[in-house]
């Protein structure tokens, strides 16, 4: 028989082990803010390519059918994606180092695998949409699939990620009703929401 404090410690250690082994806690809040800023910068660039100098409404008939526009948009989107993912990896790596844990853990692997399924299927679906000329619903589809991916990944990381996922899905559905304003919704979902969520995460866990 052990002293009673030892049994209390046993219970505490069960909780710690359960959390530490299943939660990816190196996720950096700051990288969320950066991803949001990159997305906004990308959206501004896209605006000048697609809409300028025409107003947002008639873009389907005017701009996107012009040769080269779609390719430019895909290049911008890819640049935003690469910049955001690199910032995320780099800053999360730093955070993991600070806490003395490895970035590549069973928990982070679980986050990645769970997110990969909706992200890859969504990505392929969006590419098919673009090549078949369904431009109007591409932005809503980005938001919805990204939201689903976040919710899938959230069981192994901070709860805030799940709420961000719900917001992205809701925004995506609303934006599907207003296909001409895809870029505006896209910048809100990937830009503004990321900045808000990143700051919350930063204030709560990174300070």
């Amino acid at each position: 028989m052990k002293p009673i404090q030892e049994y209390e410690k046993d219970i505490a250690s069960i909780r710690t082990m359960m959390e530490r082994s299943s939660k990816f806690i190196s996720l950096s809040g700051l990288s969320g803010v950066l991803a949001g800023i990159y997305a906004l910068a990308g959206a501004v660039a896209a605006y000048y390519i697609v809409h300028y100098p025409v107003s947002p409404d008639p873009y389907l008939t005017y701009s996107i059918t012009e040769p080269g526009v779609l390719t430019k948009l895909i290049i911008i989107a890819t640049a935003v994606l690469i910049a955001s993912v690199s910032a995320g990896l780099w800053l999360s790596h730093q955070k993991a180092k600070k806490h003395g844990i490895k970035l590549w853990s069973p928990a982070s692997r679980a986050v990645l695998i769970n997110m990969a399924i909706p992200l890859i299927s969504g990505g392929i679906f969006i590419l098919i949409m673009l090549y078949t000329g369904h431009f109007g619903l591409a932005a809503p589809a980005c938001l919805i699939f990204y939201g689903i991916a976040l919710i899938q990944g959230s069981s192994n990381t901070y709860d805030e990620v799940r709420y961000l996922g719900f917001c992205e899905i809701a925004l995506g559905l609303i934006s599907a009703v207003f296909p001409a304003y895809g870029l505006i919704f896209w910048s809100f979902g990937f830009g503004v929401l990321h900045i808000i969520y990143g700051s919350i995460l930063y204030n709560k866990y990174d300070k």
Partner: protein
Amino acid sequence: MKNPFEHLDKMLEHRVRLQIMSVLITNNIYDFNGLKEILDVTDGNLASHIKALEKEKYVSVSKSFLGRKPNTKYKITERGRNAFKKHLDALEAVVKHVK
């Protein structure tokens, strides 16, 4: 009142073994290196405790290769899951009993 101490599982009274089981009950499958990192114990220490749990049939082992590196994975058995739950109930009872 019955003595709640008698429901404690001798095998799980050891902290490291209890921690191994806690990780396995949440994650289903975990590998040796992952366990070592989380528990912050030496190879030998971890191996001997896992062996004990294996002998008791609380965990099952599967060995495979990742490239040329051996990769040993552990999984909790039904028996282990039940034992863990019973032990946790007993722990709670013990703590409550004393207070």
